[in-house]
């Protein structure tokens, strides 16, 4: 069974991020459980490890095209690989950090790590059920994955 509170918190966190940071709303699709062996990774993935009261990982995986437009919407003209890594980590960090509004300070988050390229997958906690939240923003699609124990 999906954890409704977790889903509600991250759905809100995702829409809130795009609404405030870009002033262009994102539309989130219905969350679903990730199929084993089907991580659906994009080119850039910002990964936040979670510890404390919950244990697991939150990651945002997004294509270069979406991150380019995201940077431009922030008036950032430098769309280098370094800034792609920076922005995908920062968005993941912001959404995960905002979750502490609901989960409290014992929801401890790490600094972001970034995977570039679609070959590598973040380490998921054993026994956790990864929930995928599809994100549609402008003409782009990304995914937020939340796997907490």
């Amino acid at each position: 069974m999906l954890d409704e509170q977790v889903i509600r918190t991250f759905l809100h966190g995702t829409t809130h991020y795009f609404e405030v940071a870009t002033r262009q709303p994102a539309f989130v699709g219905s969350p679903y459980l990730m199929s084993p062996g089907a991580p659906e990774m994009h080119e850039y993935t910002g990964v936040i490890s979670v510890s404390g009261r919950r244990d697991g990982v939150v990651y945002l995986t997004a294509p270069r095209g979406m991150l380019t437009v995201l940077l431009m919407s922030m008036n950032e003209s430098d769309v280098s690989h370094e800034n792609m890594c920076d922005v995908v980590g920062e968005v993941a960090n912001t959404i995960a950090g905002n979750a502490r509004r609901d989960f409290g300070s014992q929801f401890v988050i790490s600094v972001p790590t970034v995977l570039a390229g679609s070959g590598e997958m973040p380490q998921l906690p054993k026994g956790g059920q990864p929930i995928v939240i599809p994100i549609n923003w402008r003409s782009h699609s990304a995914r937020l994955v939340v796997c907490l124990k």
Partner: protein
Amino acid sequence: MISEALDVVQPLRLLIVDDSNIIRRRIERSQRLPRLQVVGTARDGREAVERFIATDPDVVTMDITMPHMNGIECVERLVQMKPGVLILIVSALADKATAVEAMEKGANGFLNKPFTDRQLNEALEELLGGA
């Protein structure tokens, strides 16, 4: 009288601390307070202490989740060095306990990420208040 006039035009020196280059540049670009002059940036708490000593800022924007030394610990260090420094926390951590802890260590204001340009400038204006 001349020194009073100089005091009026003297800008306040701003140090921006965040591990994201994009956020550092965003704050630098978006802050529109004529009294503020950016004198440096730092990408973690340890670098912030070094820049703080080198640039002697009056105002600091401070992220919390950073490598090497987090923002809360860094606030404590900076306030020990310069008790009158004004520190605005700019963080994604949205729980009340974190805000309270930062204030207890000596921060003067708190702005949650994500933020609009307007929210940033209002938070800085409020921070400067009577400064």
